[in-house]
C-alpha cells in the first residue's frame, strides 16, 4: 500500500516538473517549444527503453505528436509530446524502483 | 484423372435418379447476405419455422470465445431434409445449412463465429415442414485467457 502511494507521489512530481517546462516556454516560439518538448520526450523514452520498461501507449502518443505538428496543430503536438515524456519518465521511475521493490511482490516467501 | 472424372459423372447421374432433391439444391446465396434472420429463413425455406421439442441444440450458455463456438444440432424428427444454424445478432445471421440425404444420421457439429451475445436458432426441415428450437448464448469479452 505504502509503495503504491510512493508510486503515485512520484507520478505527481513528474507531472509538476512537466508544468514547469511549459511555463518556461512562454517566451519561445511554438515550433521551438515543440522541438524541445519532442526532443525531451525522445530522450526520456530512450532512457526508459535502455531500462527495458516502456509503456505500450507511449510510442503511439509520440507518433501522434509528430502527426499533429505536421498538420500544423502545434499546441496539440506539444501537449502530446509532453504526455509521452511524462509516460516515459514514469516508466523509468517504475523500472528503477522495481529493481529493489520487486521483492515486495514475493508472496510465497 | 480423366477416367476418374468420367466415373464421377456416371455416379452423379445415378445419384440424380435416386435422389432428385439434390439436383436442384444450390447454395442459397440470398440467405447468406440477408441482414436479419427472418429474411434469411424466408429466402431459403419460403416458410417460417414452428417450434419443436424434437430438436436438440447443444451450445454453451456462455461462449469461451465468440470466434469459436462449438454447436451440435440433432433431432428425432423423421425424414430430415436439412439442418441449419442461425445466429440472430450476427451481421448476416444465416451461418450454415446442411442438406441431409437419406443416408445421414440427423446430427451435425460445427464451430461458428458469434459477434456478440445472441439467440441461436437450430432449424430442421423434415417432411416438408420447417421446425426450430433456440438457445440464448452469452459471448463474453476475454480478459487474459491463459
Amino acid at each position, binding site marked *: 500500500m505504502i509503495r*503504491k502511494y510512493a*508510486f503515485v507521489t512520484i507520478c505527481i512530481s513528474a507531472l509538476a516538473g512537466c508544468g514547469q517546462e511549459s511555463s518556461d516556454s512562454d517566451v519561445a516560439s511554438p515550433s521551438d517549444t515543440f522541438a524541445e518538448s519532442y526532443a525531451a520526450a525522445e530522450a526520456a523514452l530512450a532512457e526508459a527503453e535502455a531500462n*527495458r*520498461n*516502456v*509503456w*505500450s*501507449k*507511449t*510510442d503511439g502518443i509520440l507518433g501522434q505528436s509528430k502527426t499533429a505538428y505536421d498538420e500544423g496543430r502545434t499546441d496539440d503536438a506539444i501537449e502530446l509530446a509532453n504526455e509521452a515524456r511524462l*509516460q516515459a519518465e514514469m*516508466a523509468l521511475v*517504475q523500472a528503477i524502483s*522495481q529493481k529493489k*521493490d*520487486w*521483492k515486495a*511482490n*514475493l*508472496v*510465497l*516467501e | 484423372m480423366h477416367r476418374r472424372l468420367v466415373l464421377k459423372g456416371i455416379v452423379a447421374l445415378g445419384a440424380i435418379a435416386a435422389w432428385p432433391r439434390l439436383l436442384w439444391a444450390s447454395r442459397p446465396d440470398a440467405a447468406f447476405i440477408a441482414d436479419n434472420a427472418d429474411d434469411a429463413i424466408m429466402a431459403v425455406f419460403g416458410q417460417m419455422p414452428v417450434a419443436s421439442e424434437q430438436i436438440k441444440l447443444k451450445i*454453451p*450458455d*456462455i*461462449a*469461451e*470465445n465468440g*470466434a*469459436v*463456438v*462449438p454447436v451440435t444440432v440433432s433431432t428425432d424428427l423423421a425424414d430430415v431434409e436439412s439442418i441449419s444454424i442461425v445466429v440472430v445478432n450476427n451481421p448476416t445471421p444465416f451461418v450454415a445449412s446442411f442438406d441431409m440425404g437419406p443416408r445421414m444420421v440427423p446430427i451435425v457439429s460445427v*464451430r461458428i463465429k458469434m459477434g456478440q451475445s445472441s439467440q441461436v436458432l437450430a432449424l430442421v426441415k423434415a417432411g416438408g415442414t420447417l421446425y426450430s428450437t433456440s438457445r440464448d448464448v452469452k459471448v*463474453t*469479452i*476475454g*480478459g*487474459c*485467457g*491463459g
Partner: protein
Amino acid sequence: MKKIILPLCLIGGLLCGLTAMAGPEEDRLAMVEYYSDRFPDVPLQEFANGLYAFDTIAREQWIEMEDFPPYEIAIEDGQALFETPFANGKSYADCFENGGIGVKQNYPYFDTDAGEVVTLELAINHCREANGEEPLLYMIGALAEISAYMAYTSRGHEMAVKVPADKPGAVAAYAAGKQFYYTRRGQLNFACSSCHIQSAGLKLRADRLSTTLGQATHWPVYRSKWGEIGTLQKRFAECNSQVWAKPLEAQSVEYRNLEYFLSYISNGLELNGPGSRR
C-alpha cells in the same frame, strides 16, 4: 522445507550466504503447496491445463475443441518442416539429442559456454543457422509449427528443467527470470505475479487467471483469439501488452530467463503441448 534449510544455512555459513534468496527447488515446492492449498480439489497434473483446471464451463468447450483441435494442422505442418532436409543435406534431427524426438522437457537449459539460456525455439534457429539457413520468426509460423511437432513428440514426459547449483550463470539466469515475474511493469503497474499468483483462479472480466504452476507445459498453443499457433514468448508479449507495457523482443535475454524460471516451476508435470486455449 525452510525448517531444514535454515539449520543447513547456519552450518553451511558462507555457502548459503551466496544464495540468501530461496533456491529454485524451494520456489517450486512453495508454488505446489500454495496452489494445492488454494485449489484443494485440483489434482497436481491438472494445473498443466491452465484455467480449465478449475473453470468448468470453459473446460467443457475446451474438451470439445481438444476432440479435434486446430493445432493438429500445425503438428502435421511442423512434422513436414522438421523432416525436410536443409540445403546441405542435414536436418533438424542432427542438431538435437535423440533426433529431436521427445526432448522438449529438457528445455530451456543453460548453455555454460555461451553463458545464456537456450529455449527450444532458440535451439531450432541455432540449428538452422549452423546449417546455413536463415533463422525463422520467433512467435508464429514455421518455427511455432516445428516447435509444436517437437512438443507433440514430448507429450507425457515430465518437465525436467535443470538449474545446476554449481553453475552461477544458470542460477543467476533463473533468479533474473524470477525477478521479472515479480516485477511490476507497464502503465497498469502489474507484475505477472499480481495476476497469476495473488489472483489466480479469480475472474479478470470473463476469464479466470491461470496458475504459475503449469504455465509452461503446453506450448506452443493454438489460441482461438490468435487464430493460429504461437509460442510461449508470444504469450509473454501479449501479457505485457495487457498491462500496457511495450513487449520486449521474443527471445530477448529477459524473456528467455523468464521462460527458464516458469519452466522450472512446472518441473514434474507432464508435458501436454501443443495446447488449445480460448
